[in-house]
């Protein structure tokens, strides 16, 4: 009979686990603080040349008008142009980050993201239909949003239906996603071909992704939907962890693998849809944020999911802040900026020698 360790050993292990978990909570907290700092900095950035003092005066004056004074111009710029855009970047980045982490976990694939699964391509196609065939008029904007949203969900349904034929496994879902990506890309290209020069340009710009047209209303809607979906996702963290060990092991641990996979994919797509229908295609956040997080705190989804969200929010806010200051007063579409940030990161990953971080 082997000696069991003395009880002292066991508590030592327990304590070490607590320390282990504490590091993750610390990371989450750190990310949260980072985001607050980034918000604080981002509000002071912009072409309007407001001083830091003016910006904060405008913010505080809204709540405590008797304490601080602010000019109407500063107040308008901060409250009607900057704040909702900054908060939207956080919410959108959070949603995309979490959606990406969920997709990578559900499909056990480090390259899974809304981009690679054809979901973004479907949204682009929806927008293109309205742009090329729309009769113009002010309802065009709303029609674009609705079409992009509807087609994103259609693509998800397509992935689900296609993969059901072959069994709801990661392989079949990924293949189905790739099929749809090529299909929608081809159809979008066709629309670009038959459209006028102006329409072609607008379709292309939609695919660049932009936070130009955010508003408080849109922010509320996105936050609501994302906030609603988060508990669903978080409650399934353990199932996602188990699925990381393989479908069969997960089943043996009590996880209903195909149902969980389907539901999580649907929720991740819903979150993605509600974001990109407003912003256009913003790539790389869903791909890069989970990887960064995994590098820092490992693969336990209880921490990985929310942390990916926070990292995604920080990334997108940084990208957007850069996008509107680098060439000020001109604006670079934020989707281009996120690609610029994402590529060096992937280069770094590629050059690392350590295997199996994933």
């Amino acid at each position, binding site marked *: 009979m082997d000696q069991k*360790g003395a009880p002292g050993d066991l508590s030592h*292990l327990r304590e070490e686990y607590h320390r282990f978990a504490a590091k993750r909570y610390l990371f989450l907290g750190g990310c949260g603080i980072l985001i607050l700092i980034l918000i604080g900095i981002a509000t002071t950035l912009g072409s309007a040349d407001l001083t830091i003092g003016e910006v904060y005066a405008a913010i505080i004056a809204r709540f405590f008008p008797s304490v601080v004074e602010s000019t109407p111009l500063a107040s308008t710029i901060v409250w009607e142009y900057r704040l909702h855009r900054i908060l939207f970047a956080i919410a959108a980045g959070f949603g995309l980050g979490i959606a990406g982490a969920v997709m990578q976990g559900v499909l056990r694939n480090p390259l899974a993201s809304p981009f690679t699964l054809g979901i973004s391509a479907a949204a682009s196609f929806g927008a293109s239909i309205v742009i090329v065939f729309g009769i113009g008029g002010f309802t065009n904007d709303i029609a674009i949003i609705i079409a992009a949203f509807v087609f994103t969900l259609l693509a998800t349904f397509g992935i689900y239906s296609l993969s059901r034929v072959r069994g709801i496994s990661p392989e079949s879902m990924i293949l189905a996603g790739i099929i749809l990506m090529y299909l929608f890309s081809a159809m979008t290209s066709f629309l670009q071909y038959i459209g006028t020069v102006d329409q072609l340009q607008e379709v292309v710009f939609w695919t660049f992704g932009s936070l130009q047209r955010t508003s408080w209303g849109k922010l509320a809607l996105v936050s609501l939907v994302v906030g609603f979906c988060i508990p669903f996702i978080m409650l399934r963290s*353990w199932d996602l962890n188990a699925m990381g*060990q393989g479908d069969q092991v997960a089943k*043996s641990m009590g996880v209903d693998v195909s149902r969980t996979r389907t539901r999580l994919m649907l929720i991740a797509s819903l979150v993605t849809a509600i974001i990109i229908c407003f912003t256009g295609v913003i790539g790389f956040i869903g791909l890069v944020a989970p990887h960064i997080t995994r590098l820092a705190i*490992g693969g336990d989804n209880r921490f990985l999911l929310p942390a990916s969200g926070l990292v995604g929010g920080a990334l997108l806010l940084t990208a957007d802040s850069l996008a509107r200051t680098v060439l000020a007063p001109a604006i670079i579409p934020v989707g281009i900026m996120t690609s610029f940030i994402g590529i060096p990161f992937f280069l770094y990953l590629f050059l690392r020698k350590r295997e199996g971080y994933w």
Partner: protein
Amino acid sequence: MTLTVRGLSFSYGDREILHDVSFSTAPGVVLGIAGPNGCGKTTLIKCIDRIFEPGGRVEFGGKDMADLSTTEIAQLIAYVPQALTIGMAMSVFETILLGRRPYIRWSVSDADLERVSAVIAELAIQHLAFRKMTQISGGERQKVMIARAMVQDPLLLLLDEPTSALDLRHQLEVMELVRRVARDKEASVLMAVHDLNLASRFCDRLMIMKEGRIVAMGTPSELLTRELIRDVYEVDAVISGESGYLQVIPVRPVGEITV
């Protein structure tokens, strides 16, 4: 609790893999399943754990498994796969903690942590506890897999060729561990084995399968005869009892060699 299997069958597409398999096993008994490649031993194990949905009836402790939820099954039966090639980003402790999933809703309780720590101590892998899975050897990984199954507090332990990727020393260690679990927890153990010699040494009972059917069931000493080996494996072998356990030493294939 007793495992009883009656008339189990399973087809993949139009290929029949298991045909009318019936047997039972008692607590504390290590039952090995052996047979040539493709005989269906891995599939049988997965059917018992309802990873696949078979035809026929599987009863454990008198209850029909088809009536239980996946979580209830997971609290009774644990499954250890052949080798681990995924899920590497986690640490050893976290991977073992996963085995508590049938008992965890959201937060990890102290009881869960105690169970994991106890198992880690039993397997003497404390020094590995917070290493990443990529940083340990294959043999150590297999131990971690068994540890994960153990924290599930199962009454039936299913193992799919647990030693196929291990070196000599680790093979012995893992087999000793399995026997200990069966004895101490009074759990039934069902183990698909490749190596007949390991089976003969560590299994209380042995089941030989061929082409989806059970062809023989009994103790290793009853089953491991030259005739059986020739029938099932189509190999001429010598059975030796020198080491104190029956050893099968293959000599030459029977009949024509089709290479």
